[in-house]
């Protein structure tokens, strides 16, 4: 049907689309397909041989917080826990987060930091692309008419990973700055992705390279100066704007603080190998 008609509305959890419909900003003109009722899209699988986790587009945030997934990608579980309220997490999906592609989408920095890939299906087949290419701009993606997000594939990484998010409330708040940090012990790389400080999720190559080369991968420690430098480089990589939610200055500052703190949780300045907090 998607291939034949251009007026189809795809509805996953509804937590974004229904806001627009309720506001009167959007009225479905043709059929609505509730893709979250499609069983394949609501399942996930761990391929141990490949070291990957593949998550159906309509897996909800509540499901992503389940220990079975959380132990494989703890940062995604942490990010999921910050999404809205229990009601939103029961309905909202990872595929919906990608489809909306807000720079404040909580799952997206984790996907970007893990170099996840997105699978899109259409009548002519499927294609897969890196999530960083999928996300084009503010609420703009590389999805083509007739395509449907079916799943996301993430590497299961050996090493510490974490997500942190700032909002002006202790629950149920949109990120005004968010950061995901992943330490890959096998590859001896550090990966950082930022939310709400650019038109889309940003990676920080300079900061990543700096920290990766200054971490003692045997003891999982780093000098305080290097952690500070890491935070500064992350701030430098941000491209925030000022709006009613926050100032650009604060956002830039906040991602640096978050990145430094996350890195410190992974690589203690002096101590033993860092375990997940």
């Amino acid at each position, binding site marked *: 049907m998607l291939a034949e008609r251009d007026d189809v509305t795809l509805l996953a959890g509804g*937590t974004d689309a229904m806001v627009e419909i*309720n506001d009167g900003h959007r009225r479905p003109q043709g059929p609505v397909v509730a893709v979250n009722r499609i069983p394949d899209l609501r399942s996930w699988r761990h391929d141990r041989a490949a070291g990957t986790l593949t998550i159906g587009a309509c897996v909800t945030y509540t499901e992503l917080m389940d220990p079975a997934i959380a132990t494989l990608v703890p940062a995604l579980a942490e990010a999921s826990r910050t999404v809205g*309220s229990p009601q939103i997490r029961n*309905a909202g999906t990872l595929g919906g987060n990608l489809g909306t592609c807000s720079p404040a989408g909580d799952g997206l920095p984790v996907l970007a930091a893990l170099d996840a890939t997105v699978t899109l299906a259409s009548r002519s087949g499927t294609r897969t692309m890196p999530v960083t290419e999928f996300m084009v701009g503010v609420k703009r993606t590389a999805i083509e008419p007739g395509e449907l997000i079916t799943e996301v594939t993430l590497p299961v990484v050996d090493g510490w990973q974490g997500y942190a998010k700032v909002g002006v409330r202790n629950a*149920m708040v949109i990120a005004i700055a968010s950061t995901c940090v992943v330490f890959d012990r096998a590859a001896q790389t550090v990966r950082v992705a930022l939310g709400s400080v650019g038109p889309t999720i940003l990676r920080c190559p300079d900061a990543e390279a700096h920290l990766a080369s200054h971490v003692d991968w045997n003891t999982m420690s780093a000098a305080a100066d290097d952690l500070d430098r890491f935070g500064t480089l992350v701030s430098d990589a941000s491209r925030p704007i000022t709006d009613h939610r926050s100032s650009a200055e604060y956002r830039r500052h906040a991602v640096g603080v978050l990145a430094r703190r996350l890195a410190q949780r992974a690589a203690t300045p002096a101590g033993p190998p860092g375990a997940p907090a």
Partner: protein
Amino acid sequence: MSEAEIYRLHVNGERRDVTDSWVGESLLDVLRDRLGLVGAKGACEQGECGSCSVIVDDELVCSCLVMAASAVGQRIVTVEGIAAPGTPSDVQQAFVDAGAVQCGFCTPGLIMAVHDLLDRTPAPTDTEIREELAGNVCRCTGYGRIIDAVQRVAVARTERAS
């Protein structure tokens, strides 16, 4: 699902035909305006306040963010389905007794959320109560008496079970 605007919902154990809804209409509006079930309240239209909380297939959701037609075939429970009129559930009675109700507009949504919480977590900690109910905003009470009501039910249920 097609463009049909006639469908049947399964609400509080009954089959209810929806005949005059527009495509995209929220479950909240269909419950209130088409089916006459006004217990769920609308206060934000964005899933930010929890006043419209209902349970769909055992999941607590904001009915304002559920497209009604997408809930065909699912089991919907609203506050009207919690207990018969005049015979409140233990959670409902605890809200009354503990002073957890002032204006009462957030209350039906909270009743749904607390039943859901206590079904899953019979003896929640203070943090668990706060995190699980954080999607239900109350502007009158400052939440203190609501937490008291939840704890009263948890204690009473535990005592009954033992």
